[in-house]
């Protein structure tokens, strides 16, 4: 064997490489979150809601939320907005005819004079023999033999006076007018004549000039009234504008309150967990007590405590004014913060206790890291995951609480709308005008759903142990 028997080999260049770059905890979580379609859709919905609440009212829909219009109350969005224009002065002469001859007990003919509109309906009928007067009824359902004729609208006190003009709060829906003849004592004849009338939306010339942008309107024209995309409420206020204002209130409380009680909970929980001993025992006992307070009852009590009753001024209302917020929002946020921190404090304490025993913390300590480094570099970043997840679940819970309190009339102070108080207003008229309840309820549901789904997604992305199986 000589030296020539040996040949140098070529160096293999393909040293084994890791197939992908190493990812930090947050990078990994971010990738998981983006892959979760439900969570991303929810995030988009939440961003849209925030735009809806805070940007849209200044840019897209600048109608004031507290302007009342008592002529257009409880209008659903699908209402007909084409209005007939009537002259400002539009008087009508009563019709008197000669007494009738014959046997009939009810008017043979009952007819509408002119176009029936929401500003007036004019009726005329053939006289009834031996009648000393007539009573006119209006109903919103068709009267039958055993149902009443409806609301008594008026009485004509002569058998020859055969006309009637109704001007009482007429809306765009079918009405049934009935005319009954009266005898000498004012007793009604047994027969009635009924007519079905469908009034058309109408406004006067001067109203048309103020309510629409038109500058030259003639009686007989048709104008289009201002469009309320989501209708109006029971005081004729624009629902879309109110929903936007309500979104501001609900989202502000729903996000600010959890943010503040999270911070308080993190401070108390980490102090308790990090220092342990007497501090821990004391703080945790206090936490147990606060958790035991009946939540909603104390929410209401705190609200009474912080909102000045009547005209008394206190520091709370001054502070609220200084912040530029309205309607008892501050009281609600303070009450929420005071009552909701224990949950997160317990959670953070548990996490800190766990992290304190971890090998990397020991190592860091051995290498001489100061307390501030341990807390800032290890404790806080490693608890952020659970904190973020609890925050996303705390937001819908808070929005629910706010809606719930406003619903029973213990929430934000009117006229400031919140979704909950709008639902409360809507419930009174829900059979006739379901849109007043439907829209705010829909907004609450969508918001709560979006935050819940985002929370699920975040939990799955951030913490493998808490991953839900769905």
């Amino acid at each position: 064997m000589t030296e020539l028997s040996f040949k140098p080999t070529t160096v293999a260049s393909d040293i084994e490489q890791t197939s992908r770059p190493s990812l930090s905890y947050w990078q990994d979580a971010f990738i998981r979150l983006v892959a979760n379609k439900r969570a991303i859709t929810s995030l988009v919905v939440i961003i849209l809601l925030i735009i809806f609440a805070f940007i849209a009212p200044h840019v897209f829909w600048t109608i004031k939320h507290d302007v009342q219009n008592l002529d257009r109350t409880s209008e659903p969005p699908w209402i007909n907005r084409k209005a007939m224009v009537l002259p400002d002065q539009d008087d009508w002469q009563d019709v008197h005819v000669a007494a009738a001859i014959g046997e009939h007990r009810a008017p043979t003919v009952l007819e509408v004079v002119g176009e029936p509109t929401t500003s007036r309906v004019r009726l005329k009928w053939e006289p009834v023999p031996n009648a000393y007067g007539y009573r006119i009824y209006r109903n919103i359902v068709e009267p039958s033999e055993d149902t009443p004729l409806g609301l008594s609208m008026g009485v004509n006190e002569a058998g020859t006076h055969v006309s009637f003009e109704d001007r009482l709060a007429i809306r765009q829906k079918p009405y049934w007018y009935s005319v009954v003849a009266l005898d000498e004592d004012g007793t009604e004849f047994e027969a009635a004549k009924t007519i079905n009338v469908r009034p058309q939306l109408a406004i006067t010339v001067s109203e048309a000039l103020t309510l629409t942008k038109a500058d030259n309107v003639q009686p007989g024209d048709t104008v289009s009234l201002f469009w309320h995309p989501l209708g109006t409420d029971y005081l004729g206020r624009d629902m879309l504008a109110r929903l936007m204002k309500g979104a501001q209130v609900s989202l502000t409380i729903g996000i600010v309150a959890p943010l503040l009680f999270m911070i308080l909970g993190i401070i108390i929980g980490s102090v308790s967990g990090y220092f342990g001993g007497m501090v821990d025992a004391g703080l945790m006992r206090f936490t147990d007590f606060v958790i035991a307070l009946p939540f909603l009852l104390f929410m209401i009590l705190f609200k009474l405590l912080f909102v000045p009753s009547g005209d008394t001024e206190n520091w709370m209302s001054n502070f609220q004014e200084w912040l530029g917020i309205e309607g008892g929002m501050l009281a609600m946020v303070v009450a929420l913060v005071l009552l909701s921190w224990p949950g997160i404090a317990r959670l953070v304490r548990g996490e800190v206790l766990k992290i304190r025993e971890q090998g990397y913390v020991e190592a860091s300590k051995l290498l001489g890291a100061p307390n501030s480094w341990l807390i800032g570099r290890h404790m806080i970043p490693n608890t952020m995951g659970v904190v973020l997840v609890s925050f996303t679940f705390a937001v819908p819970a808070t929005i629910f609480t706010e809606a719930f309190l406003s619903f029973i009339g213990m929430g934000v102070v009117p006229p400031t709308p919140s979704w909950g108080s709008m639902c409360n207003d809507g419930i009174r008229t829900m059979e006739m005008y379901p849109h007043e309840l439907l829209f705010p309820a829909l907004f609450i549901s969508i918001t709560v759903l979006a935050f819940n789904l985002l929370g699920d997604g975040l939990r799955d992305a951030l913490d493998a142990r808490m991953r839900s199986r769905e």
Partner: protein
Amino acid sequence: MTRYVLMRLIQGVITVWFIATATFFVMHNIPGNPLQNEKAVSEQVQKKLEEKYGLDKNVVVQYGIYMWNMIRGDFGLSFKQEERPVNKIIAERFPVSAILGVLAIVIAGMGGVLWGALTALYRNRWPDVVIIILVILGISVPSFVFATVGQLGIVVANRMLGFELLPVAGWGTIWHMLVPALVLGLGTMAFLTRLMRTSMLEIVNADYIRTARSKGVPVAQIFAKHQFRNAILPVVTVLGPSIAAITTGGFVVENVFAIPGLGRTFVEAVQQSDYTVIMGTTVFYGAFLVLMVIVVDLVYALIDPRVRLQ
């Protein structure tokens, strides 16, 4: 065991004392005067009234009297309902809320366990999908919407049938309770369904299930004996907090359906500034919740042999 129960009871008493103290001081600092009325009252009458209710005394003395009376189980007289003791009001109203709550818990518990088991059984098939959608609805729609829609449902059903199938509001018979209890239990039911599903699916992969399967135990028996029974445990743990959730839900349901329960009493008392009733109701509710949490913990220890009481 006895020692544990005793410890828990002592803790409970201290907690109730804390609740009572907090209630007293919050109520004491609320702006406004409970004896103020629309009617102007002469100074003498005002003084007499304050004397009668002990409002003329020092705060500390008032607190002492209040605590002493509470220990003897006396919550005082209502400010607004002439001369009626708060105890009597609670004794009258609480059973109503309790019956409604128990019924709601039963509906929620049975429904939740049943639906949850079904979803796990039909995982990713249509019953699962349908139930999950309903659960999402149940979690995200506020209870007052359910209450209103439920009431409207009764109205429409009665109208269509032409006779009164169910009463629209009020209290008295079992027929009055059905829909309010269902509405009250819906949110909790949705939550329990979800929990039951998760817990069923976790157990599918457990060792003892695999063993049973490899032994050739029939599927139905595995489901009934192993999977279902073990999956129910976590559901029992959250029943405690659920009781609290259901009592709060009672506020709305009692208001919408005009049920004379404790939740409605509280809301009315707040609206009328009836301070003694507010304090009595709050302390009573707090004590009740504390007791319930202890009971649920004990029940849990009884059914789960792994939990040891210390």
